[in-house]
């Protein structure tokens, strides 16, 4: 029982950054823009969150800064892939290569050459720092970001499927020319979706560095963005699907921690591979089988069919 609750708590904890990243992937790809740069945007969010929290002393301001910085990086992607109809994969890869370097550079500039930030104030847990302490349920006192992630999932589902904005986003991702002929501004919809995508990825990065751990390190975000992208595919480009997929990936991470700390004799290096191996397995099984938005990854050029 204790182990189960521990497993659940850690699953929720580690799935949270993934959920933010995956939601970012969902909204961007639903509008027809592939966003491989989620990883890079998460890295930028991670440093912005930690630095913001450290300098202001207010983790919420750090969280906000992470969202804004993530969106700023996404703006690069939007300009390249929406306005200039560039290859979206290349643009995303460029962001992924740029971001870790930029993050480290900023870190060294701001903190006298250090490769990691000092300890920053963390975002609260839902029941306060000591909520449920001493009870068997202590591990269910999750980070507030976990709740925010779930909330965002609900909001995104509602917006995508219950509002006219969502109808338009989905139409733009499936058949931009159809949307265009009905007076919908395809470019604006895509810009907004890519910016929201970057903001969510940024928040995802911060939910690692000011909620799970309390500083930025070079390895704080290591492949989370790519796992989130796998979750988008596994979750069939749906908010709750992606959420569920992130839980699965979070669960493998929880297994790593639980098995690594226990009486099992599995080398920790092998165990650490688990989430990534899982990602590969899921991708092998589901890529090609789940259907992406039809115009995903295809720049829209007015007048061409």
């Amino acid at each position, binding site marked *: 029982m204790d182990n189960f609750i521990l497993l659940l708590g850690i699953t929720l904890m580690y799935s949270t950054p993934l959920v933010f990243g995956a939601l970012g992937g969902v909204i961007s790809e639903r509008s027809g823009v592939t966003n491989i740069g989620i990883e890079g945007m998460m890295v930028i969010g991670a440093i912005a969150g930690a630095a913001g929290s450290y300098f202001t002393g207010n983790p919420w301001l750090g969280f906000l800064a992470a969202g804004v910085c993530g969106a700023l990086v996404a703006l690069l992607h939007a300009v390249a892939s929406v306005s200039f109809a560039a290859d979206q994969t290349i643009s995303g890869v460029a962001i992924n290569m740029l971001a870790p370097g930029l993050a480290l550079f900023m870190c060294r500039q701001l903190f006298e050459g250090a490769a990691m930030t000092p300890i920053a104030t963390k975002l609260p847990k839902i029941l306060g720092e000591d909520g449920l302490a001493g009870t068997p349920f202590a591990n269910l006192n999750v980070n507030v970001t976990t709740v925010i992630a779930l909330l965002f999932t609900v909001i995104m589902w509602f917006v995508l499927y219950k509002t006219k*904005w969502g*109808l338009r986003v989905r139409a733009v991702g*499936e058949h931009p020319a159809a*949307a265009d*002929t009905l*007076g919908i501004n395809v470019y604006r919809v895509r810009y907004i979706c890519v910016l929201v995508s970057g903001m969510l990825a940024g928040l995802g990065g911060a939910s690692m560095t000011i909620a799970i751990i309390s500083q930025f390190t070079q390895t704080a975000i290591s492949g989370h963005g790519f796992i989130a992208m796998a979750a988008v595919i596994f979750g069939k480009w749906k908010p709750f699907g992606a959420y569920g997929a992130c839980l699965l990936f979070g669960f493998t991470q929880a297994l790593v921690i639980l098995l690594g700390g226990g009486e099992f004799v599995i080398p920790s290096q092998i165990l650490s591979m688990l989430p990534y191996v899982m990602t590969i397995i899921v991708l092998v099984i589901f890529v090609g089988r789940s259907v992406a938005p039809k115009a995903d990854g295809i720049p829209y050029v007015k007048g061409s069919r």
Partner: protein
Amino acid sequence: MEVSPEFAVQMHGIVKKFGAYTALDHVDLDVRKQTVHAILGENGAGKTTLMNILYGLYQADEGSVYMDGKEVSITSPTEAIAHGIGMVHQHFMLVENFTVTENIILGDEVCGAAGVLDMRKARKEVMELVEEYGFDVDPDAVIQDITVGMQQRVEILKALYRGAEVLILDEPTAVLTPQEIEKLIEIMHDLIAKGKSIIIITHKLKEIMQSADECSIIRRGVYMGTVDVKNSSETELASKMVGRNVNLTVEKTPAHPADVTLSIRGLTVKDERGIEQVRDLNLDVRSGEIVGIAGIDGNGQQELVDAICSLAKATSGAILMNGQEIQNTNPRNVLNHSVAVIPSDRHRWGLVLPMMVEENTVLERHGEDMFGKGIMLDYEKLHEFTSKLIESYDIRPAGCEEERMSGLSGGNQQKAIIARQVSYVPDLLIAFQPTRGLDVGAIESVHKTLIAERDRGAAILLISFELDEVMDVSDTIAVIYHGQIVGTFAQGTVDENQLGLLMAGGEAK
């Protein structure tokens, strides 16, 4: 024509240039209220460009547009919709995984507070429209599950939902079955009766005669005049459109069939789901004759052609080319047995659109010595070879050797494929829907080429869903139904009704 409120739409002196190329050169269009007005022209004549200007997708360089006698300026589809113009594009603008209702309301949604969709109300509004116009459309159906005819009705509903008074239909019959075309013409007349005006872009003369009141003709961007359809004929329209007298009937001398070139014995082919699409089919095609296969789409034609080309596996039976079995080998081997194919879908199978014309014309034979040495291609040779084809098959624009294939019009793309296939001097030429989407001028040239190939001594297998084409061109007519040949006739010994019955699975009298 004078500007007057009698007209729903008037476009006067429209000029549109794309770079140095003048797509429209002072074109006029006057659409009387409550009429069906056809715009006739060959592929690339500028019909669609003119309509895209009216719908605000392009801006004219010169000229004015009037509606109800007042000048209007339309710079975007949104403005066109606001002026009561609706357009049904040739390639439907429907989101495939949306429902009918979602597609109709998109961009003009029925909402409660804060942009929350009110789907119940939206559905009701769509239902009201469906009932008012008597359309047979389920508002909850998903687009990808409904027939093309229904999808087209959804497109019309989309326009009506936005209050369209003038409907533009771009090549509306290109994708429809004969029954669906009849239904569409009914719908058009019904819409006229309810006060709408319709502009229909087409190159099918028969449908203009059936549905339109007036017809404006454009030839290579130049306005050729407007005729009253009642007092005109298909021949008159055709010659005005093409600029010379067009022969709508196919002229040919009697065939002189010689030895059997292609012989199919007991052929059975299954599709990817394991269902038999071709069953125990027998067919002979002799050198010097055209065998036409009549049948409704989906009766095994595609699988038959795929099996001959070794693109599909023959489960049983034999395909003999000059006496040698070629089934279940590979396309290269089939090609080596002197089989050339004009595929049914030129974009999917025939051409690589982003590549140059001169690369496309040697697609299947680039390895031959005449096009280069070793692993190197000799582009000069390609160019030379392609120039000859362009000249002898009148592929336009002249000098397009190094243009991308995608820049050519559909008719010229088809000419390029046919030129390529005929350049092999094949023993067997398979022409699968060779005139799909082509205008009368181009159709005439395709049919002439087929007959010329026959007279050279090739065996021709023509497969078409257009019964008229099979009846006009073939020396022998075979009917395919459920993967079997259910009747074979010499040309002239059978009429449309008998063939139609067989095609539908009935018994011939």
